[in-house]
């Protein structure tokens, strides 16, 4: 079921469901592509997120009602001729250690887990990208195993170093640049996700997958990691 609402004088929001569901990102991502291809003359931008797709369009060329009707038409004939993008998996090396995992020691105590078990749980699954936002290249990944879920910090940190890997409730993510934030930090990657490398803009896409793997303290330091 779809529901289209207005999101401003030149934008609509399409809901594909009302609950977070692992089957939605792919549907939304595929429809976003179909929309960009079929209505390329009027679609300006798309923002997929969890259950919805935000679409901004050129009001010089098409009215709200006409655009609404076109999108509804496409939604109704979807599935059959959607351009399906292949999902890609990005592998992220992470050093899980107390020097860089600012909350790791506390989390292990709270969860009554040893480090190896904790790391196994975090690295064992492929995470689905549900949304990109908060800042560029910041991908919201889910769902985190219940055994390592943890609420956001009551007081966000002023500065979290670039590459920090965090957990907030059922989500995990990597901070692409130094920023403030309230996620529990469990490790750090040396992978540069900043926009200093402009190609990073396409690093993550909604419905793609991310898998973490552990590197040792020695490997982390050998590759230029700071503690």
């Amino acid at each position: 079921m779809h529901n289209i609402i207005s999101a401003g004088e030149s934008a609509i929001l399409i809901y594909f469901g009302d609950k977070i569901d692992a089957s939605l990102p792919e549907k939304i991502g595929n429809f976003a592509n179909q929309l960009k291809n079929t209505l390329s003359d009027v679609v300006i931008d798309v923002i997929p997120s969890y259950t919805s797709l935000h679409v901004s369009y050129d009001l010089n060329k098409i009215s709200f009602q006409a655009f609404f009707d076109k999108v509804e038409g496409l939604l109704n004939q979807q599935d059959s001729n959607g351009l399906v993008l292949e999902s890609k998996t990005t592998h992220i090396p992470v050093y899980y250690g107390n020097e860089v995992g600012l909350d790791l020691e506390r989390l292990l105590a709270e969860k009554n887990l040893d480090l190896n078990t904790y790391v196994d749980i975090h690295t064992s699954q492929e995470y689905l990208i549900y949304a990109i936002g908060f800042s560029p290249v910041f991908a919201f990944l889910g769902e985190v195993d219940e055994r390592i879920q943890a609420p956001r910090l009551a007081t966000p940190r002023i500065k979290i170093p670039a590459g920090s890997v965090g957990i907030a409730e059922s989500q995990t993510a990597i901070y692409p640049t130094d920023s403030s934030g309230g996620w529990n930090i469990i490790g750090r990657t040396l992978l540069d996700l900043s926009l200093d490398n402009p190609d990073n803009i396409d690093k993550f896409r909604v419905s793609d997958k991310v898998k973490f793997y552990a590197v040792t303290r020695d490997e982390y330091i050998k590759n230029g990691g700071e503690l």
Partner: protein
Amino acid sequence: MSFKVIKSSFLSTVQDYGRLTHGEHGMSQSGVMDEHAYAWANHLLDNHFNKAAVEITFGGLQLESQVDTFIAVTGADLDFRINDKSAQMWHGLQIHKGDVLSWGNPKSGVRAYLAVKGGFDAPVLFDSRSINLRENIGAKLAQGDELSCRSFDTATYRFIPSKYIPNYNQDITLRLLPTYQFNEFSVNQRDLFFNQNYTITNANDRTGCRLSGAPIAIKKERMISEGISYGSVEIATDGLPIILLKDAPSIGGYPKIGTVFSLDLAKLAQRQPNTKLRFELMNMHEAQKKRKKFNEFFEISF
């Protein structure tokens, strides 16, 4: 050829119409806060609508021209001077090598726009010349920076009828489209929202404008994050509105009562803290008609 920054200020940045096609990549729209003043600055010089200009917030900037060219300054009255003599705003002006342009304390409004004939040749980052400090895209102007541009010895000016020069000292009413979760707010909640004078607070920057007033009691505090349009009005956990502006994140998880008509956001960009503000409803047809007319006049097209 360029303008050189002799004295930097609180916040002056290069901006163009915005970074419109990268919401998908988690990027803000960015771009000028006052589309009206910016559009006029380029229009007066017969520039393409998307030419980069300098957005000067609260004054304090000094530039030295190292080029013969033409400029136009619009927006806030920040005591604009050329060679320390009061200079005309909302008008094309010829500038010579060695001229010093300066902006002092705000007399009215918040943001002035400096456009140069042909536009400032700042780096294009992700399809736009707009600086976004929150996203670490570019930096604000600092002493010694040079703003490249071309030289011109002739120009044709356009003129602005004086009735189009806004008065930035008036309280404002923002026209709001009923979008997003509008229908999920009760009649009582909406009544409280539309029937009060809010006040613009100091928490008011390129990311958003927080208002103070009587809070709306809300049940649903957070929701699943969704794509945000420029001008959307979030009702935060404390029951007070935040109007999301050009540098706001691309997605967010607070309920939104509607979206402010874009040309009213240009007026908001010039209001100082403590200005009174009201909302009134606007319909989609009217908003699109007015915005289309504006786009046609300034030849804004994508």
